[in-house]
């Protein structure tokens, strides 16, 4: 297997707030290969967005990347190590700010943001913004950039692209704006596009159109994607491989089919169980019990043990890393000590009373799920 396009290794991002240090991303590792669509799934607050903004070094104060290494096409986007006092510092391998801005941002890696309503500057025309972006990143003249911009708009399915070029963002609907953002991301033919919940703000029919569009464009341009979402349906539809995040950690990594048919981590299982189905009424929904604990003070041991139906005493002490759980048959890794790969005392350990053990009976008092 060739070297991955993007490799994230043991990434740690922390937010230094007045209440304490929030460990938003706590040592995650994943990679993206050429032409691959990798999903990053989890509940709200799991650290998905922070993780992807760290890839482009867009984490803002009080947030800070305090550890780990991100490599892209053999270049080190960031590498942070700790000195003798435990103070994190950037190593010399990290490419400088100016170079990152000039060569990587926009040209090699593009981001599609969550809210299409907010991601376009309201005071400039849609075409003007697209044109500027192309001019900036592709060294074209203004006229050439304009032609490319109109063509890109056409390509993402904006009808009468030339006429809509001079419209302002508020004259576009949500789905159209999302198309514009996709056009913007694709315009410079980047190798990697990071899509941060791009369809969350859209209704399902538009969402389906956008997903089809992405699928088609991805095939044509052979662009790799990191797709952040909390929607298991979207994951099933477009992703090749999936990383499931919980409280700043990746708990399961698997090719998309294995994740759905051979789920290895109790959290993923619960997440899949909680997806609402049209044939279920509210009473039949299976939300995950409780809310995700604060990342300031994560539970000791396995972070999910407070809500896990399979939790046992041993889970309180061991925080498992992500390990291969299928003996190398597929690339399926999970961080749960119930698997043999971990060789812990799980089998002999007594079950924990987490309130989640006795099935998922829903009541108003206990069923607040944060999703």
């Amino acid at each position, binding site marked *: 297997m060739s070297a991955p396009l993007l490799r994230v290794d043991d990434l740690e991002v922390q937010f230094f707030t007045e209440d304490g240090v929030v460990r938003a991303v706590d040592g995650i590792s994943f990679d993206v290969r050429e032409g691959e669509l990798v999903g990053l799934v989890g509940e709200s607050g799991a650290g998905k967005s922070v993780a992807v903004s760290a890839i*482009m070094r*867009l984490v803002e*104060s009080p947030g800070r990347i305090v550890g780990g290494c991100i490599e892209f096409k053999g270049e080190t986007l960031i590498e942070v190590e700790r000195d003798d006092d435990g103070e994190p510092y950037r190593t010399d391998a990290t490419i400088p700010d100016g170079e990152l*801005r*000039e060569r*990587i*941002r*926009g*040209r090699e890696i*593009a*981001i599609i*943001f*969550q*809210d299409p309503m*907010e*991601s*376009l*500057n*309201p*005071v*400039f025309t849609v075409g003007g913004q697209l044109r*500027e*972006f192309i001019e*900036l*990143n592709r060294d074209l003249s203004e006229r050439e950039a304009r032609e*490319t911009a109109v*063509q*890109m708009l*056409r*390509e*993402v*399915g*904006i*009808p*009468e692209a030339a006429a*809509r070029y001079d*419209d*302002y963002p*508020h*004259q*576009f*609907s949500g*789905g*159209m704006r999302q*198309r514009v*953002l996709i056009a*913007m991301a694709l315009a410079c*033919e980047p190798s990697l596009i990071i899509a941060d919940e791009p369809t969350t703000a859209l209704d399902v029919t*538009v969402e389906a*159109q956008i997903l*089809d*569009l992405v699928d*088609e*464009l991805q095939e*044509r*341009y052979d662009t790799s994607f990191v797709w952040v979402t909390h929607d298991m349906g979207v994951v099933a539809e477009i992703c090749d491989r999936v990383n499931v995040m919980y409280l700043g950690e990746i708990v399961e990594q698997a090719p998309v089919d294995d994740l759905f048919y051979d789920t290895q981590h109790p959290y993923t299982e619960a997440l899949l169980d909680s997806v609402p189905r049209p044939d279920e009424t509210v009473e039949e929904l299976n939300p995950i019990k409780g809310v995700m604990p604060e990342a300031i003070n994560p539970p000791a041991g396995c972070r999910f043990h407070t809500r896990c139906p399979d939790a046992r005493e041993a889970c309180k002490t061991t925080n498992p890393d992500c390990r291969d759980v299928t003996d190398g048959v597929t690339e399926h890794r999970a961080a749960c000590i119930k698997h043999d790969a971990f060789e812990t005392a799980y089998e002999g350990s007594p079950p924990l009373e987490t309130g989640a053990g006795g099935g998922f009976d829903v009541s108003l008092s206990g069923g607040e799920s944060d999703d």
Partner: protein
Amino acid sequence: MATTHSDSETIGSESVDDAEQSVSSVEARVGWRYTLAQVRKDPTAFAGFIIIAVASVVAVVTTIDAVVFEYLAQYQVFAQFGVEKYWLAKTVWMSPTAEPAGTPTLLPPVGMENTFGQGTWAHPLGTDDRGRDILLRLIYGTRIAILVGVLATAIGLVGGMVIGAVSGYYGGWTDDVLMRLAETLYAIPFLVLVLAFIAAFGRSITFAMIGVGVASIPKFARLIRSRVVSVREDEYVEAAKAAGVRDRNIILRHVIPNSFAPVLVQATLQVGTAIIIIAGLSFLGFGIQPPTPSWGQMLSVSRNYMIQNPWFSVWPGLCILITVVAFNMFGDGLRDALDPRLNN
């Protein structure tokens, strides 16, 4: 695009209805044309706009006459065409600065009578204490009022915008240092600051103007910073960052245009304030120096003759009043036009 596909138009064509809806229902609510159309619907603001426009035209024409012709007059070649300072005024009427021989002083306007004589059509608004035509001096005084008012505001606006935008965008210690400096400036009374500025650099209209501009920097800086602080969190700013845009261009192209509306309104109102301040300085003798005509300085001279010829002081006072009120009316209208909550 490197790859041109013939089928590219077909992708996502199902969203056509989607698009048509939004085309017809909304008209552009940004840009100059829309704002001006909005101002036109408001009679008060439109009246203010007309007055400002007329005054500006007068100011431009008189500036050309007084400044450009003076420059041309230096060259002998143009002298034979009769080119000199106040050439227009002299051709049509009489010089606004030279004291004409034999003209009665302190004449009242047409149809009035006072101890100095009867008003004539030769001097519709009367003459001043040296026999100069008041109407002409008022016309030439417009130049100082508008030019100096606008330039002083521009200095404050640009200075305030840079300081406020940088301060709000970067935050942290940059913000602290710049804003504490601005507040220090803000703590000193406006007129005292301007007088101190003139005392330090010299008694001329240029320094008076710069002084007024500098003194109004904190007002603009604080105003724009308050907007920038919220605009910088908008997603299109982050999107621009992710696209590899330089900080300088993010501030210029994304942050400032989106923070500009309240500043524009403030600037329009500030022009009125600046005109009053400059007139006040001229009144005190710190601004424009005689014989150049200015409203404030005319007021200053006229106060000695208030009993004998009150008209002398009424006219420049009226001019200042009308201009300042016009700027305020226009500013109010602009505020309404730029306020999205009032647009429906």
